[in-house]
């Protein structure tokens, strides 16, 4: 059984799905344009480097407004939201995040014209990073 619903396949949990919907205003983001840079294996889930870049000219009338980062397998999937402006020059950002277990990290980008794009990468976590 290999039924595959584009878009729907991107959200494993209801919380993640709801967060994406809220961010996109209900739209299903397209694939491409945004790309995540994550390690394949993270030994320490307490601090996992995550980078995101969006293909955009970043001019005053064509730029990336924001990028939502989600961790599908965390108790709370919200991680961070980057907000860019034309002054950012390029739509790229990096941070370090906590991952409770092996899971998918998701990035959703929103352009100034309202279109949205998604990427996801699996990160294998050796030691979880959410304590307690």
């Amino acid at each position, binding site marked *: 059984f290999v039924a595959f619903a584009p878009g729907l396949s991107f959200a494993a949990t209801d919380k993640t799905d709801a967060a994406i919907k809220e961010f996109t205003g209900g739209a299903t983001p397209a694939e491409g344009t945004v790309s995540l840079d994550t390690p394949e294996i993270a030994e320490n889930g*307490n*601090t*996992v480097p995550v*980078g995101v870049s969006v293909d955009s000219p*970043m001019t005053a009338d064509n730029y990336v407004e924001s990028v939502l980062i989600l*961790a599908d397998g*965390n*108790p*709370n999937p*919200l*991680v*961070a*939201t*980057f*907000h*860019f*402006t*034309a*002054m*950012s*020059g*390029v739509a*790229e*950002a*990096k*941070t*370090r*995040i*906590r*991952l409770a277990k092996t899971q998918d990290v998701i990035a959703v980008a929103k352009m100034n014209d309202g279109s949205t794009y998604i990427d996801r990468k699996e990160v294998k976590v050796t030691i979880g*990073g*959410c*304590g*307690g």
Partner: protein
Amino acid sequence: MADPKPRVKVPKKASKGEVITIKTLISHPMESGQRKDKEGNLVPRQIINKFTCEFDGQVVFTCDMDPAVSANPYLEFNAKVEESGTFKFTWVDDDGSVYETENKIAVE
């Protein structure tokens, strides 16, 4: 808690129209609100929830953070510089504290 120390790396000089990379780090435990202490009580959440970078009063980049951002939150992003000016960096704590630092850049 020790007073959070912001650290920022901005190039001192750039050429007009150059896209520079800015790196920031602030010491902060980013207490997630998920962790339990030795007695099994939940440690209340206290994180830095917002970061802003402005250049001469204009917003360049901001970030909303949730508890899944690691302790001592690190952010790396870019800015396109057209003229000399001052970058201002602001971090907002859950308890309302605001941590700030500034960096000048000379554009030739």
